[in-house]
């Protein structure tokens, strides 16, 4: 009888970043959220951040579950309110890198007001918006990103509302970094996340992902593999594109790339500068107490 040679078990390099004691996760087979999480974990490795100083905040929904799977200080908050929670967290401890990881419905519909105000104020947050064009967790209702003509359970005869063009919304509200990739572009996503980590200010990354269970099937768009083919064939990389011109239509081309990368003072910096200027020696910086 021959003995088999001992082989070291393969370890997924992103495993240390995950709460493996919480696996299996809740996402469906073919869902794109897991791909984005993989990219996020790789971005954490590449950015060489002190992970004790990285916090992740999610709202509610399928993507809202991301915070709970990351081995970081993580907060699963209320629907739409991840950004104002993160604003409080970041202002209270500027040392933290604060990531908001949520879906299009959470961030842009119920949380839309917080989104535009945090961008306006340039709160130093990294916003990762997983856009699957639909409400997944609640069973496939229309979202503010659903393309015209696509069906959802609450628009059974086709969506007739114009969707938001997220990069345009982010840029016009004041974001200093805006990028869009599909989950076919895993290396680009990772690079964008690393860039966002190195950026001071409101950084926005939209990631287009398939929801096979509730969006693809209902709209007869095939499965996630077909969607990957679609992303490959129909996405066009245009770095620096005018965000006004990156709208997404049903089955149309998806313009990807880094659209905005500018610098302006963050909320924390502006607050500090203004108070120092007005109060002079009377100003006691927060944290000094």
């Amino acid at each position: 009888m021959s003995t088999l040679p001992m082989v070291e078990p393969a370890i997924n390099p992103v495993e240390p970043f995950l709460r493996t004691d919480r696996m299996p996760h809740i996402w469906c087979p073919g869902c794109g959220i897991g791909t984005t999480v993989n990219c996020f974990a790789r971005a954490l490795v590449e950015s060489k951040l002190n992970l004790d100083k990285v916090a992740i905040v999610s709202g509610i929904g399928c993507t809202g579950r991301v915070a709970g799977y990351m081995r970081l200080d993580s907060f699963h908050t209320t629907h739409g309110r991840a950004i104002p929670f993160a604003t409080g967290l970041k202002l209270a401890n500027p040392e933290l890198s604060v990531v908001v990881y949520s879906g299009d419905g959470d961030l842009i519909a119920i949380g839309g007001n917080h989104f535009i105000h945090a961008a306006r104020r340039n709160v130093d947050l990294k916003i990762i918006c997983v856009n699957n064009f639909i409400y997944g967790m609640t069973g496939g209702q229309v979202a503010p990103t659903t393309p015209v003509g696509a069906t959802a359970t609450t628009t059974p005869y086709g969506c007739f509302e114009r969707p938001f063009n997220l990069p345009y919304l982010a840029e016009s509200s004041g974001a200093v970094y805006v990028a869009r990739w599909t989950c076919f572009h895993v290396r680009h996503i990772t690079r964008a996340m690393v860039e966002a980590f190195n950026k001071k200010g409101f950084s926005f990354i939209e990631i287009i992902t398939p929801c096979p269970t509730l969006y693809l099937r209902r709209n007869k768009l095939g499965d996630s593999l077909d969607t990957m083919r679609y992303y490959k064939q129909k996405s066009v990389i245009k770095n620096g594109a005018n965000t006004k011109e990156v709208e997404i239509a049903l089955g149309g081309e998806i313009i990807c790339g880094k659209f905005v990368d500018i610098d302006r003072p963050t909320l924390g910096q502006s607050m500090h500068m203004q108070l120092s200027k007005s109060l002079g020696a009377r100003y006691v910086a927060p944290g000094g107490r």
Partner: protein
Amino acid sequence: MKANPAGVLTGAHFLDGDQACCEGALAAGANFAAGYPITPSTEVVERFAARIPTVGGLFIQMEDELASSIAILGAAWAGKKVFTVTSGPGFSLMMEHIGLAAMTETPCVFVDVQRGGPSTGLPTLPGQADMMQARWGSHGDYETIALCPNSPQECFDLMIDAFNLAEQYRLPVLFMMDECVGHMTEKVVIPPADGIEIFPRRFTSLPPSEYKPFKPGADGVPEMVKAGDGYRFHITGLTHDEQGYPAMNWREQEKLVRRLVEKVRKNTDKIVRYEERDIEDAEVVVVAYGITSRVALRAIQMAREEGIRVGLLRPIVVWPFPEKHIRELSEKVKAFVVVEMNYGQMVYEVERCAAGKARTELVDHGGGTVHEPEDVLKAIREVAR
């Protein structure tokens, strides 16, 4: 521990209730507030915005009450002592995060300077109609603690207690003022910092490998950590186990939610506070809180002059309700007269505790101004007959 002198404006001042509330928060060590303008509460955060940059801490005006009520929770998890301030319509919007604070056991204080309602109601005029909302406003089962000051001095003193209770029991504490108390100006004496007792945050001393965010101590309250200290903890509004992980089953629901309510219910005797006047020989007890207690006092004087044996019971902590005490009194007295600036809220609690042993009469008022003492006197006469 003693208060940090940085925020304590020691001395005798002439302040309105809103300003005194702000000074109370500062003396308690509040170093983060978020708010949204709303009459008649805005003066609290206006003063905080002016004072805090010279004390060390920060204020941010958020885009709405939903945002302010959760920004403070984010800051609390970064280690800050936090509060927000609002009035009726904003209080309604904040209910979601009173629930999140209760569920995640986040110490924080919500101030509600009550005005006439419902809806936009009477923005500049008083009401006391948010009392049941303070108890039951957010969905699901939870317990909070609510305090009710009746003077600017108490706005200062009780705000410190509010912060201490929030830290001790790790929950949202509701500070239920009214427009009259908020806008009346009186003498407020602020003691030196070493005369102010502060309940410190219950930070754990356990290393990350042994720490469980929701493992209760002997008193039912878990120890806390803050972001950035290497604990890599998880906090969720979902039902969760001791590790803080979502646990979608009835056993964990029972374990968690029962503990959330019991950490208050089992400590009710320690938490309840009330003031009594002329109660020893009383056969009628007037129950009133906030500004209304001061009107009731005038009516009690008038009734005493007529020879009616009447006293005052003023709940200072309104939630949890002084249930046991009302029960005891109901064995001795003929009747309770409940005076409140609403069409009947706390009266139901009095009636429940009196359990038919003493008559319970309500003197209601829709708000907009305080009661006439004569209306209270009339009710006292009626039940004393």
